[in-house]
């Protein structure tokens, strides 16, 4: 690695590097449009998501129902949009929960240092070996399958990786000269957290968050698939895949459309996360 290369890398901003990554940019646009369509679904969906048309139940895709109808004659496209709203909401809110807990825990561990830090991180190691899916399932049952609790439960078990990464970064920041300078000038810990840690962690946090969303959405889909998550008449992509899988012989379109949209969304999130990491994480260099 010669000097000029480093300089040219440093002289261009992360966004410029990001924009050169075609796959990541397209994934970003795909996600934005999916999210827009899903969240606008009450306005633009062709039918209300729970409207039943029993005369045309289990109909194959047609001009009237682009993606067909399910066993109760509900329009699959409209349900797909409504389910997407739920799935994306879970992804966003549960990730925010995981972010909040992960940042606090990671920064706290790095700040206390010493034995307490070791103990805190050992706890994370141990918890991450436990069967957390079981705990999420139990939680959703205990709290009556209502949405906020699903968000909390899913987020509550997804913060472990985040805490680990944030702690490692914070440790480095803590040892850096500008933080030591701030300390010697008498800035409070809270001030250092807000003025120095958070801005420097922002890139890492963005990458982490993007890569946490698919895991969180998968977890929700798992729980819904087992019939323990989102309750009828609402739906989510996981639940739609489940319903489609039950009658895939007769009505394959009920399985195909939610599966494809779900897989594409997860794929785009992974591409976007990788792109962000390559662009903003100084240590990952593209080989």
């Amino acid at each position: 690695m010669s000097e000029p290369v480093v300089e040219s890398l440093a002289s261009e901003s992360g966004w410029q590097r990001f924009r050169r990554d075609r796959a990541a940019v397209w994934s970003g646009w795909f996600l934005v449009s999916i999210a827009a369509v899903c969240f606008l679904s009450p306005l633009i969906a062709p039918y209300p998501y729970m409207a039943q048309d029993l005369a045309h139940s289990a109909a194959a895709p047609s001009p009237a129902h682009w993606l067909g109808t399910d066993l109760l004659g509900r329009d699959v496209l409209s349900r797909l949009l409504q389910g997407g709203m739920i799935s994306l909401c879970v992804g966003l809110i549960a990730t925010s929960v995981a972010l909040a807990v992960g940042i606090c825990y990671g920064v706290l561990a790095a700040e206390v240092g010493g034995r307490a830090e070791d103990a805190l991180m050992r706890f994370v190691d141990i918890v991450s070996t436990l069967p957390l899916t079981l705990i999420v399932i139990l939680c959703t049952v205990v709290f009556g399958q209502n949405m906020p609790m699903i968000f909390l439960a899913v987020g509550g078990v997804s913060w472990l990786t985040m805490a680990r990464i944030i702690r490692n970064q914070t440790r480095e920041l803590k040892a850096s000269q500008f933080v030591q300078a701030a300390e010697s000038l008498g800035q409070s810990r809270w001030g250092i957290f807000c003025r120095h840690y958070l801005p420097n962690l922002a890139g890492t946090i963005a990458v982490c968050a993007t890569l946490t969303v698919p895991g969180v959405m998968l977890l929700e889909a798992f729980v819904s698939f087992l019939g323990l998550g989102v309750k009828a008449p609402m739906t989510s992509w996981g639940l739609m895949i489940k319903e489609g899988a039950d009658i895939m012989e007769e009505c394959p379109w009920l399985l195909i459309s939610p599966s494809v949209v779900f897989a594409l969304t997860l794929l785009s999130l992974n591409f976007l996360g990788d792109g962000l990491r390559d662009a903003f994480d100084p240590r990952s260099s593209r080989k």
Partner: protein
Amino acid sequence: MAYVLRRLLEMIPVLLIVVAATFFLAHAVPGGPFDKDRPLPAEVKARLEQYYGLDQPLPVQLGNYVVNLAQGDLGPSIKYPGWSVREVIGSRIGVSASLGLVSLLLAVLIGVPVGVLAASRPNSWLDRVPMGFTLVGICVPSFVLGPVLALIFSLGLGWLPPCGWGSAIHYVLPACTLGLITAAPLARLTRGSLMEVRSLDYVRTARAKGVPPLRVWFVHALRNALLPVVTYLGPAAAGLVSGSFVIESLFDVPGMGRLFVTAIINRDVMLILGTTIVYAVALLFLNLAADLANAALNPKVARSR
């Protein structure tokens, strides 16, 4: 040896926490095991609760449970009268364990060679095509892949039974689904770590001193490159567990995953606790095994203990 002992001792508080957390969660589930469509007479219900020890205060119940657990007794099942939880789990655990092992084996046998192959010719079609597939494998969840495989191989081609259990042929679809899903991240991990290792100085030295290329590749590079892969097997096993819930209900496999889901639906507190504990113990031991394998491969790790 002292290290293994320390890890084993560490498991005890972890298990206690799992037991306590699951215990209170399971008891907080609304509705009890004796709530039926038609309510039981109050005195019958009271006698039943007394028989199962459910009438005592929760901390006492928890204490009793832990004492019994220490003696290997998981208590009586409520949904299967006359059966102990140990017997119920014992009748199911073989199915899940064998399915899990076959899947894990399949994942390693597919994932590692694919990763090695991809890393041997980086950025060629030999790399791009399999890596594209692994990306799909990461994004397609097991509950999508399972139905799709069933649609193709049992309903379309009629080669395999779509569901059921009993003979070796019933393993194929569920094990392939779980194995392929797990193989994808393994292949990516193997490739990434091989790419990193092969640019290291010691590999160049080995090549320079005239070690045959294949020997450099398999003996020098691969041994080191497999370290993160082995470490990943612990979390991969955890992924198999959650995958198995879905796969077992999808392919009608009488295993632990289905047992857990039905236990929750039936509010069978004892069975919920029992299955969770068995899963936790299994995962803790798998992680320990992965760490030990890592130490066996890596003298540096072994010495630092």
